[in-house]
Every structure is written in C-alpha cells, then in structure tokens.
C-alpha cells in the first residue's frame, strides 16, 4: 500500500494555477525530496496534503484512505504530521509545554476541563522523551522565546515526531540553520525509523540528497521530473530549471 497518492490534484488562487493536474505517489517508508524554484508550489502542495487548503479538483489518499474532503484537524489522527517553513510555535510557553500540546492534540484528554495538566505525568514524560530525542531535554523548562532559531527548528521536529506519525512532511527543515545545527538536524532526520514515511521540501541539496531516495522536481505547480537521485540530478530539465548551468 502506498503511503500517499495524489491524483490529478489542482489548485488555483484566482487566475493563478499553483497546482496543475499533479500526480504523486510515495511508498511506505520512502524518503522523498521535493525540490523546485521558489513559487513552484511546494508548500502549497503540503498545505493541500494536510488539508489547510482544499483542492479544486483531484484526490488525496493517505495509506489507502481517501482524505480529499477530510477536515485538516482529523488528518493528524490518521498519522499525518508536518513541520512549517516559517516556525509556528507557542513563544510564551516552555519547550516542554509546546511538545505537550502536540501530544495533547491526539489525546481525548484535551477536552478535559477538570484535571490538572501539570499532573498528567504520562503525557509529560512522553513530551520530555520527545525533547530528549532531539537533544533538548535539558532545556525543557525554558520558555521558547529564550531559545535559538536552531533549537526552535528542533522543537518543531520534536512536536511532529511526538505524534508518532506514519507520514511526516518536513518543510525546509534546514532553513536558517548554522553548519553545526544542520549537522544535528541531519543526524536527527537519519534516526527517524523506517516505518515513518518522510516527504521533505529542501533547497540545501548537499544534505537533502543524502537523505532522499527519490526526488520530485516541481515547477509552476507541475511535476517536471521524478526519479532516483541520480536520475533527477542528471536530467537536463533539472539543470535547466533548478540547478543551473
């Protein structure tokens, strides 16, 4: 069974077509890299998959289930998690609270107005473990506003991983990171178990090519080239549109 199947997906903003009859299939456990110049429609594609945008036409299937019309809020419950290109966290809260909120999103406990959140030890220990996985357990009690950009990127990933997704969408996870921070995030992404399918948008080809098995090149909302690393890098359209030279 494929993890993700997009069939003839279309999306327009007024007269601007941002996704044009797009077909994409990602197999379970695969590491897929989506590349393309700015404005190619990569983030829009993620927004369509997560349900933050509704497609004008076409279908989306997640692990064999049609989710085209499923509300965005229900998709995480089917094993879909994502990170954002522009970090969207809770700056007034601690790192631990940020990850706890992520866990709470999939728990029936989120509706409980009577119990104290601070006493939900199981949930909090899981959140702490998720922070430990990205090497931030020692900063758990620190407010997010007092952390570096790289640390926030890792909190984003910790929040996504904490939900134990089956399909993880990473939107430019290396953007804005220093060389050392890139190495850490790179190590972290390599450690994601194989039962999690990963689809990643990234411009840093050096690190991204090492992580990806298959690559999709997008341009003006269309899939231009798709194949293995070697196939896509060697393709003349890739050089023309994206790599240059």
């Amino acid at each position, binding site marked *: 069974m494929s993890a993700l199947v997009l069939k003839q997906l279309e999306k327009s903003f007024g007269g601007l077509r941002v996704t044009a009859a797009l077909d994409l299939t990602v197999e379970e456990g695969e590491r897929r890299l989506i590349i393309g110049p700015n404005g190619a429609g990569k983030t829009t594609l993620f927004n369509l998959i*997560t349900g*933050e945008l509704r497609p004008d036409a076409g279908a989306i299937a997640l692990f064999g289930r049609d989710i085209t019309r499923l509300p*965005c*809020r*229900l*998709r*995480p*419950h089917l094993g879909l998690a*994502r990170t*954002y290109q522009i970090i*969207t*966290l*809770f*700056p*007034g*809260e601690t790192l631990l*609270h940020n990850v*706890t*909120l*992520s866990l*709470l*999103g*999939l*728990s029936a*406990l*989120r*509706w*409980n*107005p*009577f*119990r*104290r*959140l*601070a006493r*939900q030890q199981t949930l909090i220990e899981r959140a702490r473990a998720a922070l430990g996985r990205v090497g931030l357990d020692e900063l758990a009690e620190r407010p997010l506003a007092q952390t570096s950009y790289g640390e926030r990127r890792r909190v984003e990933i910790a*929040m996504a991983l904490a*939900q134990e997704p089956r399909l993880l969408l990473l939107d430019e996870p290396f953007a804005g990171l220093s060389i050392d921070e890139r190495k850490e995030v790179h190590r972290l992404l390599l450690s994601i178990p194989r039962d999690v399918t990963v689809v990643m948008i990234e411009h840093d080809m050096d690190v991204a090519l090492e992580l990806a098995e298959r690559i999709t090149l997008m341009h003006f909302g269309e899939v231009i080239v798709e194949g293995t690393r070697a196939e896509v890098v060697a393709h003349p359209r890739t050089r023309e549109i994206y790599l240059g030279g």
Partner: protein
Amino acid sequence: MTRRLLIAAACLALITVPLWIGNNYYVNIASQILIYAVFALGLNVLVGYAGLVSLGHAGLFGVGCYAAAWLLAGGFGHLTAALIALLIILATSAAFAVLSLRTSGIGFVMITLALGQILWGLAYRWIGLTGGDNGINVPSRPAPFGLSLASAAPFYYFTLIVFALAVASMAVFVASPFGASLRGTRDQPRRMTALGYNVWLIRFLAFLFSGFWSGVAGLLFCYFNEFVSPNVLALSSSAEVLLMVISGGSGTLLGPIAGAALVVIMKNVASAYIERWNFVLGAIFVAIVIFMPEGLVPGSVRLWRWLWAGARRFPVRGGVR
C-alpha cells in the same frame, strides 16, 4: 508559602468585609464589586484565554437579568427561575457563539457588538415582554434554605459564595488540558488545527463557559437591584466590563477582579467626592495602558520583581541582601 499566606489573607479579608467596612452602603459596594468580578471573569475566558474580544457580553449579562426578572415577576419560584434563567443563558450563549465564531479578530468584535445591540433593542422596544424603559421589578430576593438575603450582609455572603465558585472554576479550567488547548488556539489557531485540535469547538465550549458566568453575574445583579432595565444590556456596559478585564490584566485570574474593583469603586465611591470622576477614571486607564500595558495585576508583579531585583543588585547596608 507566601502565595498561600496571601490567598489566606485575601479570603479572611473578604469574609470579614461586613465587620470592618463600616455601613451597609459600603457592603453593597463590595457586593457590586463581586458581581462585576464574576462578569469580568466570564468575559476574561474569551478575551484573555481565547483571544476573542467580545463587545456584546452585556447582552448575555442582561439575558440573565431579564430571564430571572421575567420569571420571578411571572410568579415562578426562585430556584425554578434561576435554573430556567441559566438554561436560557446557555442557549443564548450558544446562539451568540454560532453566529460570531464564523470569524475572529475585528469581525468577531463587530458581530458580538451587533448581537449585543440587537438584545438591547429588544429590551428597549419589545415592551410587552420587557416593560421597555420601565423595566421589570423583581418581587423579592431569594431566601436559600430559609435564610433571607434582603439585607446587605447576607446578600454579600451569598455573592461571595458565587464569586468563590467562579474563581475556583476559573482556576481549575485554566490549569486543565482544555484550558491549555484554549490558550493554544489563541496563540496559534492554524498550528492547533494541524496538531489535531478542533479549534471551532474549543472556542464554542469556551464561549458557553464565558456566557454562563456572565449570565450568572446578571442573575446576581437582578437580585441585587430587584429591578432590571435596558441599561444593563447597553453597549456602555459591554465596554465597561471589557475595560475591567483589560485594565486589570486579561489572561490572568486576578486581573479582572482588580479591574472590577477599580471601576466599581471609581463609579460609586470616587464619584461622591470628585465631580469629574469619569475624567479621573479615563486618566487611570491611560496611565495603565502607558505604564502597565499588560494590566494592573501583571504590571504590578513586574514592577515588584524589578524593584526586588534592583534591591538585590544594589544592597544597602543593613537592607535587603
């Protein structure tokens, strides 16, 4: 430890108000502060924890007032009238929420403002039901367990019990997983949806909780005055309670209480000594916005910490170390 001592001192001070405050006039002022504090706490659920500014909450406060007054004037018993009034408050809150939660930000403000004005218009013009400008007289105050609330002190204690329930429910709510979810929808609604939360439903339930306590305050206000008129639903009432929340400190437990105390004291006590008391109240609000934009309570805490840190950095011989 200090926190517990402060809470104990505040409880003791509130319980002994009728003993040390002097005459019945001031006991009634204290009752009014508690009533408006319950109202402000209710609004604070939306403004402070959900990030939704309502300018129509006087409508829900007024519905509580009118429902109870109309039922009591119609011959219903106090318990029945109160229970039916609470159901009406919840139904009205649900209707407000369904209509206003289609949007957020300025759109939410405008829809709540319009809904509040519709209720005010009904109270003013539907004379057959509301008595119009003449309002509705309430025959008597309730007498729970045979204890008459006709005089100032017993009514104050009754209000204090309701106030304590409101504060306790808020404290539990804020610290709960649902409270954390609500604050999350205030800060990052889009992210919360992507994390699996139903943002609309969370806000809807918060609106019911907020409306419930606003209506309860209205019910108390109806008992307090033994009369209700369209003024309670006016836009100025909505603005006043919003000022209580913002000036005291939205998103805090104590802020709306401090704000309610400030406004009620200025309206009822300072106005007896200062002819232009509105001017003074306005000046106080401007000062709060400039010097403590986060509100009186969080601003005072910040100031205290700053002074304390300063005293520790530059210890005076024999002073703080």
